[in-house]
């Protein structure tokens, strides 16, 4: 087992490099701010007021509810999609990739065309209030959860379904013996992701919730922006960091290591979910998912389709979005490649750091550090890319980590025996065997990046206009219909990417 030890040592070194990179970018965000706050106000700058408690309670309440409402139906819908086939199956999954790319205000507008006053389902749900916040969060995160869980269920060994069919497992027995052992590992991760996304939600919470709904993120933004009270912002950020890191550590404890692992030779074919009851339940769940996700998308498509215009500024923005998305996704994948192979809770927490540490805080810290270059376009683009990559990291890892775990169990000894390591191992073992998860995680990172508005809003643009920021600019100049066209383009772009990624993954699956 000498070779195995060498392999481990080499990996540890790579992990260390990736971890250091992520950790230092977080610290490079925090430390300059702390220094700034202390140099202006001393330790007294760090203080809290009474209102924080309410803010904390509301943040946790809405994030928890959004998480539960997205993750549980998400799991059931993913399971239904995995075991039922029907015309449009593939397109439904692709459409489920679109919400992730949409800026929050576009989603709010799309939701109002369905649930708003004087609209189709107006009055079905109290759009302005907690109900609307939850609806919007579920619209964003339910399809995300479905895709992540579906990806996980694809990793189940085909033999398991054959064996279950032979042993005449009921659907329930199959769930507990075959599916749950795989889901169990990813449920805490997906839940933590959704929870953090909702805790950091800003535009949705403010627009639909009004001043009653103040989350930690809103409070941080207010201190940082309006009051320019860096001490208070940092205190709030530290609360958020401690809270979220605690949650992540907790979810890491729930996570267990024995994953069933897939064989690659067989097609995954399922023999369960054939009874009437099971079909009824599955198609009800699928219909529910479609009912939540499709009507707002349809509204977005129908209002944007006629407004789309291919002007130089739209092309320019699409180009920037595409380029920034590509580079930051590659960067995210590169970092994730190394971090995803570690399963300790520290790495897990690190992977989520860009969601745990408020991006507003991180970006301000980076700015203080880079202020001498703040007018250089390339530095601004580089920072946007770095922030996007960090924000995509947790999503990429949630797809890659189970795939790595599976490969490691299957081939590590063989690789050690053959002295396959480093680039040779990546080229001959990891890349071919992980094409599908790699493509899927790249897609997710890309869609997140092209839809991102956080980085560009925080860092200023210097003429860098992406599709989401173009939407923002068009709306700011009364051009709501142009903005609808641009939003349509963004949605179509992400749909095409989802389609391409799936085709590419399928093509390489058959090898």
């Amino acid at each position, binding site marked *: 087992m000498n070779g195995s030890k060498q392999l481990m040592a080499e990996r540890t070194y790579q992990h260390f490099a990736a971890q250091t990179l992520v950790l230092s970018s977080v610290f490079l965000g925090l430390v300059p701010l702390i220094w*700034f706050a202390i140099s202006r106000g001393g330790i007294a700058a760090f203080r809290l007021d009474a209102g924080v408690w309410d803010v904390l309670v509301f943040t946790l309440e809405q994030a928890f509810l959004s998480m539960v409402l997205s993750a549980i139906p998400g799991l059931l819908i993913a399971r239904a999609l995995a075991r039922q086939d029907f015309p449009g199956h593939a397109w439904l999954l692709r459409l489920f990739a679109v919400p992730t790319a949409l800026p929050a*205000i576009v989603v*709010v*507008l799309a939701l*109002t*065309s369905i649930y*708003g*006053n*004087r609209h189709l389902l107006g009055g079905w749900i109290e759009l*302005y209030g907690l109900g609307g916040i939850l609806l919007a969060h579920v619209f964003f995160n339910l399809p995300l959860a479905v895709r992540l869980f579906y990806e996980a269920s694809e990793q189940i060994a085909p033999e398991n379904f054959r064996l279950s069919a032979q042993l005449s497992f009921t659907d329930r027995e199959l769930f507990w013996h075959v599916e749950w052992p795989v889901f169990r590992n990813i449920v805490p991760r997906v839940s933590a992701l959704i929870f953090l996304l909702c805790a950091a939600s*800003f*535009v949705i919470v*403010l*627009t*639909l919730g*009004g*001043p*009653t709904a103040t989350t930690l993120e*809103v409070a941080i*933004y*207010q201190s*940082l*922006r*309006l*009051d*320019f009270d860096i001490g208070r912002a940092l205190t709030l950020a530290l609360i958020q960091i401690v809270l979220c890191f605690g949650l992540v550590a907790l979810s890491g404890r729930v996570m267990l290591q024995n994953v069933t692992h897939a064989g690659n030779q067989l097609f995954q074919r399922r023999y369960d979910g054939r009874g009437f009851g099971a079909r009824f339940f599955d198609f009800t769940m699928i219909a529910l998912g479609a009912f939540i996700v499709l009507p707002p998308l349809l509204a977005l498509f129908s209002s944007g389709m006629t407004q789309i215009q291919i002007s130089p*500024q739209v092309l320019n923005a699409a180009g920037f979005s595409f380029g920034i998305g590509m580079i930051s996704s590659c960067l995210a994948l590169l970092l994730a490649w190394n971090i995803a192979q570690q399963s300790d809770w520290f790495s897990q927490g690190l992977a989520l750091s860009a969601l745990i540490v408020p991006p507003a805080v991180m970006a*301000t810290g980076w*700015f*203080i550090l880079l*202020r*001498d270059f*703040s*007018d250089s376009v390339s530095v601004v683009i580089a920072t946007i890319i770095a922030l996007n990559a960090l924000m995509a990291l947790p999503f990429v890892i949630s797809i890659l980590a189970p795939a790595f775990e599976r490969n490691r169990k299957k081939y590590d000894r063989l690789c050690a025996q053959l002295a396959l390591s480093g680039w040779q191992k990546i080229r001959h073992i990891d890349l071919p065997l992980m094409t599908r998860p790699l493509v899927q995680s790249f897609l997710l990172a890309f869609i997140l990046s092209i839809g991102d508005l956080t980085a560009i*809003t925080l860092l*200023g*643009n*210097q*003429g860098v*206009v992406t599709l989401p920021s173009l939407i*923002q*600019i*068009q*709306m*700011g*100049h*009364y*051009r*709501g219909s142009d*903005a609808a066209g641009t939003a349509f383009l963004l949605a179509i772009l992400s749909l095409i990417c989802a389609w391409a990624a799936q085709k590419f993954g399928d093509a390489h699956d058959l090898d």
Partner: protein
Amino acid sequence: MKKILLTATMLLALGAVAQAKDVLTVYTYESFVGDYGPGAKIKAKFEETCDCEVKWVSLGDGVAVLNRLKLEGKDTKADVVLGLDTNLTAEAHDLGVFGKHGVDVSRAKVPGGWTDTEFLPYDYGHFAFVYNTELIKNPPNSLEELVNGDPKQKIALEDPRSSTPGLGFLLWMKSVYGDKAPEKWKVLKKRILITAPGWNEAYALFTKGEVSMVFSYVTSPAYHMIEEKTDKYQAANFVEGHYLQIEVAGVIEASPHKALAQKFMDFILTPGFQDNIPTINWMMPASATSAPLPSEFDKLVKPAKTLIYSPQEVNAHRRDWINEWFKAVNG
């Protein structure tokens, strides 16, 4: 290879020539520049008058510009800062980085006149409630009527914590009602459907038909009349008067291009700059334009009275007033 080297040298030489020109760095907010803002035209016009280059550095909005200055302090790269409003100038003054603008203040034509020698106005606009004439037949004639109006007719506001117009309305309420503002907020609360993080979101939801009225500017209907040829959206005229927003520019004292910066300040109150304000920035010009304003501007509401707090008052009370508002709407 030689060819590449040659090209590179030429490019470098060209760069050096470009560098030789004086570069005037102007911080401003995002929507002032870009494809829809007046920035590009103003830059071109000013560059005609000097052997120089204007470099726009755009940040989210006026507050983001101020925060950038707070982070940078005396090391700022700006020569000129354009896009603060009078609610921010007291704080900006306290940074101690601004010098005198050196322009004759009597040239600035803003309601109430102008005396500040540190900041110079380049445009202004009265806030107003814009309503959808298809949904509202009898618009409110006063703030009082708005507050006490039918709670079923919903309005959209902006959050004063994150938005400049949002803060504007908070100050409007305060300037009309003083200590009674919290109770009035409590009454008005029943009509508020949306308190959006920014003007963009509020106005988009308004044009979508979610609300019949939105907090915006007196000039907003001009856009719809000129660009969309529709009278559908109009502003309501309030007898108590309308709160005023004045957008200003200032010169950085330590700027290495101070003469050029002051030349730019002088340019601000000339038609070369002002012509781009009404129908591109959709605000009122702070001095004469070369041609009269389009006739649609005559149809806009002309506030009977202008309400405005001094920058010092806003700076002293803003935090308390926001807390007061927060308690009132959450009560």
